[in-house]
């Protein structure tokens, strides 16, 4: 089983819910394909990650740029999921984003930290003036609880 | 990390004080110094009171020394080996090759007993 789903959304927080829910649905689909009964943790992880990355894409948008869409692509396989989010924002480097000092309870900066925590892999590459964030997550046997 | 061999010849018995760590970085030095000493005597006490850590290459060196000592009808006795260093001897079965004493004096005395 291999399904490809692509969404193109305006870089606007009005569509944040749609993006995140699509992530949750894609995850649910990938999980149900291997007969997972309970997939809350897996689904929630993907929903959270998509919410964070879409938010970032919208927030870092420069006002002066011509109109573009955030492209969200789901590669759904039985038991695992790949999410690719493409935006036209200024370049950002994943490694240069500091992890929040969780002991100091900062008020922001948790976004990418959370994404890295809940997904198996997160990479960012720059291609044709786009940031391409690729995230993957596989259901492990212990998730099947 | 510190490692020094003080060979003070107390009669025909050599005492080597091992301290700090014995590992890949200094095990060769141990062997070399041991061989030099082997020309004078074949009975040794390794005082391990101040030895904190030994790894497999360190252990290998100590066992090689023992083999050489045994080949010339001598022996190496170990003194004051800390429990966690002893764990490594147990794990690798090197424990069976050596006799352990609580301190250097007892180890020295054990050689004397044999002669008596």
């Amino acid at each position, binding site marked *: 089983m291999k399904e490809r789903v692509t969404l193109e959304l305006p870089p606007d*927080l*009005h569509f*944040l*819910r749609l993006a*995140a829910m699509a992530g949750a649905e894609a995850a649910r689909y990938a999980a149900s394909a291997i007969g997972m009964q309970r997939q*809350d*943790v897996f689904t*929630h992880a993907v*929903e*959270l990650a998509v*919410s*964070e990355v879409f*938010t970032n894409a*919208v*927030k870092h948008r420069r006002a002066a740029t011509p109109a573009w869409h955030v492209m969200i692509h789901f590669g759904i396989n039985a038991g695992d999921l790949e999410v690719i989010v493409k935006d036209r924002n200024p370049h950002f480097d994943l490694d240069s984003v500091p992890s*929040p000092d*969780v*002991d100091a*309870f*900062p*008020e*922001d900066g*948790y*976004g990418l*930290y*959370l994404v890295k*925590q*809940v997904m198996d892999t997160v990479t960012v590459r720059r291609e044709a003036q786009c940031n391409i964030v690729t995230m993957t997550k596989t259901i492990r046997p212990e998730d099947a609880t | 990390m510190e490692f020094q061999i003080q060979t003070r010849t107390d009669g025909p018995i050599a005492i080597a004080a091992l301290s700090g760590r014995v590992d890949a970085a200094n095990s060769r030095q141990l062997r070399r110094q041991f061989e030099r000493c082997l020309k004078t005597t074949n009975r040794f006490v390794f005082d391990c009171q101040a030895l904190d850590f030994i790894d497999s290459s360190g252990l290998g060196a100590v066992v090689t020394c023992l083999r050489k000592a045994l080949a010339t009808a001598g022996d190496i006795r170990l003194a004051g080996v800390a429990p966690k260093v002893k764990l490594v001897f147990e794990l690798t079965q090197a424990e069976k090759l050596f006799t352990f004493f609580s301190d250097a004096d007892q180890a020295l005395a054990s050689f004397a007993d044999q002669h008596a």
Partner: protein
Amino acid sequence: MQIDQQVMKNIFVFMPRGRLDAASAPLLRERLAAGDGGNMVLDFSAVDFMDSSGLGALVAGARRLRAQHGDIKLACIADTVRRVLELTRADRLFDIYDDPEAAISSFAPEKSV
């Protein structure tokens, strides 16, 4: 997002409804900032999702209130919210109750029966 508000035993009880994300966090931030000082209970029984923006609003609110010797307590958080609090270790920052009533009376234990 909609945020219901009521006062019980001199304590502000906020009840946000829906998703607490970048789209709705500013509203929560604003509402938490409006109540000056005092104690608050956030009843999360109608919140099914929270991301880092929502968390940011909570942490900011708690910090402001504590500087004024008040506090925020949380009640009825969903598993999804609990996981975000745990992953960011922000669970150490909040008292979390499974009953808003208990959260409210915890502010004045001697008065509650």
